């Protein structure tokens, strides 16, 4: 059941680095992260890697496996042939700290630029009433585990450092959409999506949706509806007004 797998892992830091080859034991049922851990325990005790839950719930172990942005803990070894070389590299869009660990602070900055949920002034804690159907849209986006794989993938910033300033990336555009669709949020979000978070940069290629490990339909359910709302609003302020009026709870 167990075999010697061929791994090629990027080792290095902000100064530079290289792909290194390893031969390492692989057992039945294992995922890429198991094999990286075995490397640490037996050959490379200082190999840097982030992880926490090992169950696809925390979004820590993001990397690129044979060039595909993935969670290492959810990438099973039986998806590769035994003689296939498995190449593991850090996420490319973010600066490398060491080995597979990147500096993802960009994302935390962008998170801080999205104004927080604005609670309705007239309701006290315990008085919130919302229908399941109305919360479901935002709930889909709240499944996000902040793995930042969508951010890593999006071509607007992947090889365009210069766009990082004005583009928040799919994760945080989706956060704006989430708040916009929250049945009780009292703030105006659509203006900001376009002006401050760079919604206009997105040309709906759906690459972000494809890599999302939570299978959130980022483009179809968050980005496109936001774009539609922004357009509506630009041409017809009544549409926007109407939206807000209808969205107040009974």
């Amino acid at each position: 059941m167990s075999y010697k797998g061929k791994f090629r892992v990027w080792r290095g830091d902000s100064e530079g680095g290289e792909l290194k080859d390893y031969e390492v034991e692989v057992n039945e049922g294992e995922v890429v992260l198991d094999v990286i851990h075995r490397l640490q325990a037996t050959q490379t005790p200082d190999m840097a890697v982030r992880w926490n839950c090992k169950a696809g719930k925390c979004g820590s172990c993001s990397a690129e496996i044979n060039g595909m942005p993935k969670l290492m803990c959810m990438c099973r070894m039986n998806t590769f042939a035994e003689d296939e070389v498995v190449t593991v590299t850090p996420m490319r869009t973010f600066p490398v700290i060491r080995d597979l660990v990147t500096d993802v602070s960009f994302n935390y900055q962008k998170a801080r630029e999205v104004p927080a949920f604005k609670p309705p002034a007239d309701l006290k804690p315990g008085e919130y009433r919302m229908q399941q159907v109305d919360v479901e849209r935002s709930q889909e986006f709240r499944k996000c585990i902040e793995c930042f794989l969508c951010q890593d993938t999006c071509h607007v910033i992947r090889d365009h450092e210069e766009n990082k300033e004005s583009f928040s990336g799919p994760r945080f555009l989706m956060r704006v959409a989430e708040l916009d669709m929250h049945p009780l949020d009292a703030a105006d979000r659509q203006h900001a999506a376009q002006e401050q978070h760079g919604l206009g940069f997105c040309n709906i290629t759906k690459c972000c949706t494809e890599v999302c490990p939570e299978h959130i339909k980022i483009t179809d359910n968050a980005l496109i509806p936001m774009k539609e709302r922004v357009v509506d609003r630009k041409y017809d302020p009544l549409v926007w007004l109407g939206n807000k009026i209808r969205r107040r709870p009974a």
Partner: protein
Amino acid sequence: MTELERHSYDVVVIGAGGAGLRAAIEAREQGKKTAIICKSLFGKAHTVMAEGGCAAAMGNANSNDNWQVHYRDTMRGGKFLNNWRMAELHAQEAPDRVWELETYGALFDRTPDGRISQRNFGGHTYPRLAHVGDRTGLELIRTLQQKIVSLQQEDFEATGDYEANLKVYAECTITELMKDGDAISGAFGYWRESGRFILFDAPAVVLATGGVGKSFKVTSNSWEYTGDGHALAMRAGATLINMEFIQFHPTGMVWPPSVKGILVTESVRGDGGVLKNSEGKRFMFEYVPDVFRAQYAETEDEADRWYKDPDNNRRPPELLPRDEVARAINSEVKAGRGTPHGGVFLDVSSRLPAEEITRRLPSMHHQFKELADVDITAEPMEVGPTCHYVMGGVEVDPDTASSVVPGLFAAGEVAGGMHGSNRLGGNSLSDLLVFGRRAGMGAATYVDQLQERPKIDDADVDAAAADALAPFELEGGENPYTIHQELQQSMNDLVGIIRKEEEMEQALGRLSEFRSRIAKMTVEGHRQFNPGWHLALDLRNMLTVSECVAGAALMRQESRGGHTRDDFPTMDPEWRKKLLVCALDADGVVNVTEEQQIPMREDLLELFEVDELKKYLTDEELPAK
């Protein structure tokens, strides 16, 4: 003197899980300059993994629910060993803490009339767990994280600096607490990224570091759970209680080997899933203990009717408290009625329609599909016990969360007392909110009352730095990964779910061998993001905590909750009155001593029938009537 960066705060919170974030929100709202420190990235703490829900007697699903019922359930679940004042505060305040989350932006699942939906869980009389599918922990942590961000946005408006009053130091590990005489004066640690040292000068420290599960081989816990807070508290002179009580969750994955221990949420059973042995029998009916006989169904028919009509039927025995279910599974497997991979079957596929399963249990469906090639809508899961939660922790004052060390507070899994000998599912998330807030308040009040700010002694800083670098000094020693694996194996085998005197003595012997091996281990490479070094430092904490668990377990000669003795199989009311307290002596050796419990307040005692109390209390303790 050691070269390091230095920061000054009113309150330093160690831990960014539910307890730490709630504590920090409170301290900041009380006007205190607050730092949050965590080993992982912000938003990745263990709380993110919680699945089932957060218990609070809001009465949305069943209007008969109230804090008294929740209090009774909690005390029963903990076999009356709980700190009753903590259980009381918890039951009373949990609803407000959950509602407050909605004002921060949380979106829980809803009832038909638009309120927060509540689900059934083991040991809870009524549906009580606020939830979002099976990803409640993610909702909780993200909500608190976003509340922190919103406070930072307020500070930005006011000062132009997001981090003026509340800052998160992520991927930063605290290795030592600083003291001035008896009182806390700060915390010392290192940045994981650079390995450089960092010092926090602060009169109040809140420990919210979570649990200890990484000392065991089969566990649902992540690498962060190395008992740092438990060990830091002891080294600072604080005491731990209830360390013998470890919760083995009955349903962890058993196959494939690499995911052994990963949790299968109790909601599977709460929503109708049943446990069967290899003969196809629902074996839990055989394992209802006397103390719970009156509340649990005796036949499959009655148990099945309960899901539809809970007021007129008794609960299915699959929903007994976790310690009971875990022991039952253990016995079935030992008796040869286990599954091919050494567990039992947990079946929801024959109980609910496929679309219902994927709607209610989406992440379980995903987890089994991706990791085990099992479709839970079509076939049963294989499950077995996994080390999940430590009931034991820092001994605290219930109202303020203060430890015996002035300036040191603790909340969440690192605190002890609230759950007694066994925690009910869902009672942790609510515990984090209730006592996280109280710890933040306690720390703020303490700082207000201080006459003089305690100082940090440079010599202590130098000593902490030398300790942290020690593993680099030696050459040719053992690798920390090997020692860690052996430590986990020993704890699993010798101080696991069923315990015996000889085995625990053997464990203590091994632990003292590990102590000398750890002193001599070697770390390769340099200080920049070096997981080998990080593990080496964590190992010392795991060792101290393991010594507490084994020492206390050896002493407690009875079986109760998360402590089962093969040689003392029954519960003993005399032991209920006693807490086992762990402290370090002058030489750094773990000492376990007995302490008397404070008797339960009269009005709380009256919430129970005398017949029930008789099962737990000694005759003298019963109310005089």
